[in-house]
């Protein structure tokens, strides 16, 4: 068996990460200082006053998360070049995610005055029940999703904490991983603080800063990895020697990792379902104008090429640079180990800031989504509709901090199978929101009941296929395709070889269309406000509901 590289823990690496964290915190403070107080607190705090520029939209819609820098490298290291086909839908994701619904979501959000996703559904379909359902789904799915994100952030800090510092920081306790606790405390304090204090603008600014660091980190690591592996040909050859010919061919090393049905599924998952993520849809409500959208598509196309193509090459090379991780089941650590092996401690800290930044940006966006649901869709709509800006500000700060604290407590001892929960909740959210959003944008005949049916069917299909996979896992049945489910984790059930996202999307679309067609057509005046040309002083649909209409034919 190959000797496994043990990463060094140098104080400099940790200090670079701390510096990175401090800059993120500083951006949060500055964001709070430049907030335009005149434009309404909620719109500013949760939507950045619809002022996002092209770079901000591109880099914050880049869909990078901890998985991009921890999970994907692990897969590439394990299964080889086939993972390139698994992930390459990001070549087309910028144009699908930003281009298909971007302008219409932006327009409907402006015409209705919506500042949260449930707001948008409520005003477009005229249905509080639909908004409430959307809000509940967002809060449940995102809160669950935040727990493993917090765990990932804590683990990165733990990886670089110098030996000896941990014991000094936290007195030992039975059953507690001190390094993890210190990491969790540092991560939580920072990300919750800057998100709470600076709101959406802070999340966006830090996202942009962190995205730039991610690109720099990847571009530094690429030549280092190629040099250390003796070139790409040598890396591939040694990968094949270690893992078998599947390392360089389809469907992947040692397993039917990517049959064509799954390859197709991932074009649906990354490029199509990505459109339905609440975090993406909210960004489509926040960009400045349609020119911004055009440029953001261009920038994101470049950014994705800069990130994903080097990632594939780097971690193909990693198989020969760090042998033995697959056998030792340590592939999840390939990124930090590679950084500390190839770069000096300062540069390693900078590169490690990439996954750390990805996790932070995901967390800040999710925290605000959950908080906006609590404040706008529950507190203001149901309990305190007459609350002034000052009260709403206090409620927003409190909600953001509260969600952060609750998730931190849940992340103290997170269950091991939460990686599956991330994928499940991502699929579930997209299955819930994508088709209703498309119907809202493009179909006059779509009804609130149809949208509700679409939402319920999408989520129901996702749950059914994951529950089936779970039951099969309990019986020890391996799905046979896709990545190996990690004990005690379980994979989804791949009906006919396709990922659940494909079936959820189809079921959601069929339900949405059929139920819309058999239910009462939507209010013609509301539809006219959102689908017909209107003068700038036309009322919002909410105004129309409050006052009888006097329509000019």
């Amino acid at each position, binding site marked *: 068996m190959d000797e496994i590289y043990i990463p060094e823990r140098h104080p400099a690496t940790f200090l670079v990460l701390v510096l990175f964290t401090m800059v993120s915190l500083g951006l949060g403070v500055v964001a709070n200082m430049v907030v335009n107080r005149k434009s309404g607190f909620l719109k500013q705090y949760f939507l950045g006053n619809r002022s996002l520029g092209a770079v901000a939209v591109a880099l914050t819609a880049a869909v990078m998360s901890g998985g991009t820098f921890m999970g994907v490298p692990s897969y590439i290291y394990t299964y080889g070049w086939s993972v390139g086909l698994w992930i390459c839908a990001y070549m087309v994701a910028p144009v699908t995610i930003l281009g298909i619904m971007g302008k219409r979501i932006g327009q409907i959000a402006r015409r209705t005055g919506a500042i949260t996703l449930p707001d948008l559904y409520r005003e477009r379909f005229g249905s509080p029940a639909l908004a409430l359902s959307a809000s509940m789904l967002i809060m449940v799915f995102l809160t669950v999703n935040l727990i493993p994100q917090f765990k990932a952030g804590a683990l990165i800090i733990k990886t670089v904490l110098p030996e000896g510092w941990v014991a000094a920081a936290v007195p030992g306790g039975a059953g507690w991983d001190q390094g993890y606790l210190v990491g969790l405390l540092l991560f939580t304090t920072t990300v919750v603080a800057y998100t709470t204090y600076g709101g959406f603008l802070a999340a966006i600014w830090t996202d942009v800063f962190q995205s730039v660091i991610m690109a720099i980190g990847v571009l530094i690591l690429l030549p280092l990895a190629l040099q250390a592996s003796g070139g790409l040909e040598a890396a591939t050859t040694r990968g094949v020697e270690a893992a078998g010919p599947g390392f360089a061919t389809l469907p992947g090393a040692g397993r039917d990792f990517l049959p064509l049905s799954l390859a197709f599924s991932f074009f649906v998952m990354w490029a199509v379902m990505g459109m339905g993520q609440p975090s993406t849809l909210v960004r489509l409500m926040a960009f400045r104008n*349609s020119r911004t959208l055009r440029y953001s598509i261009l920038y994101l196309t470049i950014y994705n090429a800069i990130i994903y193509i080097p990632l594939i090459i780097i971690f193909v090379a990693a198989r020969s640079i760090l042998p033995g991780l697959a056998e030792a089941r340590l592939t999840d650590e390939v990124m930090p180990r590679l950084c500390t092996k190839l770069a000096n401690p300062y540069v390693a800290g900078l590169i490690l800031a990439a996954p750390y930044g990805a996790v932070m940006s995901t967390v800040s966006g999710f925290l605000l989504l959950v908080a906006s649901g609590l404040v706008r869709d529950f507190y203001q709509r149901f309990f305190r509709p007459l609350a002034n800006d000052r009260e709403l500000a206090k409620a927003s700060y409190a909600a953001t901090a509260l969600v952060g604290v609750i998730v931190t407590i849940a992340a103290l001892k997170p269950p091991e199978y939460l990686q599956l929960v991330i994928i499940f909740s991502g699929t579930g959210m997209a299955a819930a929101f994508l088709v209703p959003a498309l119907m809202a944008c493009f179909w006059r005949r779509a009804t609130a009941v149809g949208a509700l049916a679409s939402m319920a069917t999408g989520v129901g299909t996702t749950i059914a296929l994951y529950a089936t996979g779970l039951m099969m896992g309990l019986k020890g049945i391996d799905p046979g395709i896709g990545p190996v489910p990690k004990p005690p984790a379980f994979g989804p059930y791949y009906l006919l070889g396709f990922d659940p996202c494909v079936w959820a999307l189809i079921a959601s679309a069929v339900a949405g269309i059929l139920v819309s067609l058999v239910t009462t057509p939507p209010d013609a005046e509301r539809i006219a406000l959102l689908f017909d040309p209107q003068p700038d002083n036309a009322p919002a649909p909410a105004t129309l509901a409050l*006052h009888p209409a006097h329509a000019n034919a």
Partner: protein
Amino acid sequence: MRIPSGSTKVTFQVMHPPSQDDPVLRNSRREAWVILLIWCFATFACCGISGYLGFQPASKDGSIPPIPMIGGIPSWFVWGVFLPWGCCFVLTWWFAGLFMTEDDLGSDHAGELESDIREEATHG
């Protein structure tokens, strides 16, 4: 929209026949169809070419034939991933740079919605 005190009517347009789409809707729909074509191209080019070239069956004697490489990269990956990626790059730049229109998205009614939420609470 600010409703004058005492007023109970608002004015807006309903188009008859009701199919005169807003220009943003019309352009977005046209652009969505083009994007769908780009997605289909990417998906079927990648899956088709990679599927055709990427599976390496064992020869009759059970041995694995050598894997064709281009610059250290498996050839199926070059033709099935990098080539479509390059094409998509060009298509995306054409789409966002030349084809996509810049539409006026209208004014923001967020303040009006805030007022409506308060008004609804006040007047039931």
